[in-house]
């Protein structure tokens, strides 16, 4: 039966397409090039528009929304400065493979290239940090382009897609027809793994004497936590997660040996270094994970599972590559393992676990729990206890991010939301807002530092307007802590421009935005403050914890070192 066709203006088509795509929230900021669209948004109520206070906030909020829900985050900004302000957020999503669809207004088709008012080559500027982008040149292409954008953003290895829409296109009319499905001859992500490769992998996995499972954000993106958990328990092997992969396997499970990498646990990094079979799943061998590539996993045969062929063997040669969606591949591998006559080598595994436990006995994450001055780790540990490990936690970038990753034990996927790849300060607050919009009944906490927090502080207004009561836990060490740490270690303590002078009164700041502010200076008051903040369910609360300025993130692998060359702490060095 032929569909009923109506004649609509581009701006109407835009709104209808979002509705038909099932979009509930649109994060945006208006301007000349998108005013036709804003006028249409006014007339409908299928899509709720969230007015942010800076376009960077729109992209981060949509990104947080996407990370927490698994659905694409959607953004609308105007041309020129609207588009350039959105770029940091687009690049952030790109590095972590987060599905976003970002609509940028553009000057009218007739004046493109004339340096028109608020013209910028959004396609050119975003090309290196998007999965794909489109310039819509005819209103007839608008609906199909929106369909393509959502399809590309959410399938295969997800990522941000930019759609640049000139203003005249939003006024032109044509028939509206939104396709249900779409195929592109030039874009066909691989779904299933190759059976032959998977058989070889199963054999190698079962032959291991010192196995390690190393998993990343790909497991979360593929919604494969259930499969990963079954796979890992079936084998009984130790598992480590990357910063992006936390929560894919329950952190409180006895097989979990912590995060790996620069600030990962001693046992995870040593396990990587000495393993004989490495099973890499949805992880991309980032330099913060591998350390010096020359020294990386010298004894291991490597199986790598990834949906993106270009991720396989990019940094590290791989013995058995498997291209495919992690969820499908793990499902098939579980079958193969169950039906195999071989079983894991129990005796070797016992010895290997003994070794792992010996490493773990060093207790690499210890800190001074008796300190009067607030230890940042203590705040996070308490937060974890009080929220029973079940909060959505966003973070910014720096020491606080690493402590959050080390001390908040995530048992579920999509609970830990941080900018791992790009390391974007300013991400945490708007991301938390996006999460809270998606899950109004859940506890959403932003763990931040006083330097990161102010990078997108203006979104406190948005939190008030849309009633997204989040909890902001600021670990205020009056330093760009991570910068200070590097300056202490590698620049003889010359703290060049890393001291945060002239900090604002954060309590007053929170209050001026209509929220609750608390300032906590002693360890004994930490728990009470956290309880108070969490109890104020209807309010956004900013807790300014005045923490130990000298605390460093340990353990640490210095840049250029191998995974077995960790520093445990200032006063505890390894032989």
């Amino acid at each position, binding site marked *: 039966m032929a569909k009923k066709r109506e004649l609509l203006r581009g701006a109407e088509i835009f709104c209808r397409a979002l509705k038909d795509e099932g979009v509930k929230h649109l994060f945006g900021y208006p301007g000349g090039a998108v005013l036709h669209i804003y006028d249409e948004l006014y007339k409908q109520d299928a899509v709720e528009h969230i007015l942010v206070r800076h376009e960077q906030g729109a992209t981060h909020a949509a990104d947080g929304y996407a990370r927490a829900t698994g659905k694409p985050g959607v953004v609308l900004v105007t041309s020129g400065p609207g588009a350039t302000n959105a770029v940091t957020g687009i690049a952030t999503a790109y590095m972590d493979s987060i599905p976003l669809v970002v609509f940028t207004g553009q000057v009218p088709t007739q004046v493109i290239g004339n340096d028109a008012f608020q013209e910028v080559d959004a396609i050119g500027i975003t*090309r290196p940090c998007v999965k794909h982008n489109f*310039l819509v040149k005819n209103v007839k292409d608008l609906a199909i382009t929106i369909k393509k954008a959502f399809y*590309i953003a959410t399938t295969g290895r997800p990522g941000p897609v930019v759609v640049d829409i000139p203003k005249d296109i939003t006024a032109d009319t044509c028939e509206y027809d939104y396709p249900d499905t779409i195929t592109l*001859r*030039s874009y066909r992500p691989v779904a299933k793994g190759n059976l032959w490769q998977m058989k070889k992998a199963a054999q190698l996995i079962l032959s291991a004497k010192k196995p390690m499972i190393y998993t990343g954000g790909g497991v979360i993106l593929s919604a494969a936590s259930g499969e990963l958990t079954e796979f890992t328990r079936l084998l009984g092997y130790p598992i480590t997660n990357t910063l992006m992969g936390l929560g894919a396997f329950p952190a409180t499970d006895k097989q979990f040996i912590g995060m790996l990498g620069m600030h990962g646990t001693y046992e995870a990094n040593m396990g990587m270094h000495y393993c004989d079979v490495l099973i890499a799943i949805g992880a991309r061998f980032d330099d913060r994970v591998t350390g010096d590539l020359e020294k990386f996993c010298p004894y291991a045969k490597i199986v790598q599972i990834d949906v993106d*062929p*270009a991720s*396989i*063997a990019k940094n590290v040669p791989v013995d058995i590559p498997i291209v495919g969606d992690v969820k499908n591949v793990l499902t098939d591998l579980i079958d193969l393992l169950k039906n195999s006559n071989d079983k894991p080598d129990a005796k070797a595994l016992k010895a290997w676990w003994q070794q792992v436990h010996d490493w773990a006995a060093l207790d690499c994450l210890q800190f001074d729990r008796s300190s009067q001055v607030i230890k940042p780790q203590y705040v996070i540990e308490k937060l974890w206890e009080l929220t029973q490990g079940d909060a959505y936690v966003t973070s910014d970038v720096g020491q606080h991010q690493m402590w959050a990753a080390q001390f908040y034990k995530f048992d579920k996927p999509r609970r830990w939301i941080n900018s791992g790849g790009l390391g974007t300060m300013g991400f945490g607050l708007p991301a938390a807002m996006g999460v809270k919009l998606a899950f109004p009944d859940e506890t959403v906490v932003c763990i931040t530092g006083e330097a990161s927090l102010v990078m997108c502080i203006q979104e406190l207004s948005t939190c008030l307007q849309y009633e997204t009561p989040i909890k902001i836990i600021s670990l205020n060490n009056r330093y760009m802590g991570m910068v200070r740490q590097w300056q202490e270690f590698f620049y003889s303590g010359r703290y060049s421009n890393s001291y945060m002078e002239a900090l604002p009164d954060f309590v007053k700041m929170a209050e001026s935005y209509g929220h609750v502010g608390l300032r906590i200076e002693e360890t004994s008051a930490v728990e009470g403050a956290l309880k108070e903040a969490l109890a104020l369910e209807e309010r956004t609360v900013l807790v300014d914890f005045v923490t130990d300025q000298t605390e460093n993130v340990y353990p640490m692998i210095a840049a250029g070192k191998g995974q077995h060359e960790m520093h445990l702490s200032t006063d505890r060095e390894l032989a």
Partner: protein
Amino acid sequence: MRHILSLLMENEAGALSRVSGLFSARAFNIESLTVAPTEDPTISRMTLVTSGSDAIIEQITKQLNKLVDVVKVIDLNEYRHIERELMLIKLAAKKEDRDEIKLMVDIFRGRIIDVSENTYTIEMTGTGEKLDAFIATLDEDMILEVVRSGISGISRGNTAIQS
């Protein structure tokens, strides 16, 4: 090692800049690049000459395949193939040199396609090496202008690369 890659891609405005942007962003090297539409006007074919270790060529191929506009990538080195390049070259042709130039052009199977009082313009196709060799036979001061198309490649025999 030198590789000749053949790409079929959507004949879209931005496609070429996606490919060249990829090469600069990832610090891959391009020796030459040519592109034009095929018999199917929605598809362009690009021939790209690059070089690198096996691992780098593998990454280049994968990254090209990952571009949404790219329909197919073929490494012609894996096939028996033919490569050709077109050169247009303008020479100062003094009376006394003209016979010699004509002889060389014949030997290299080129053609003189334009003549003026003082110049010859020559058209020549062949592998890059052959064109280099021709240039090497010429006196440097004789060469007024050189235009080369970059390499185009195609597989031999029955194999045909289609979308």
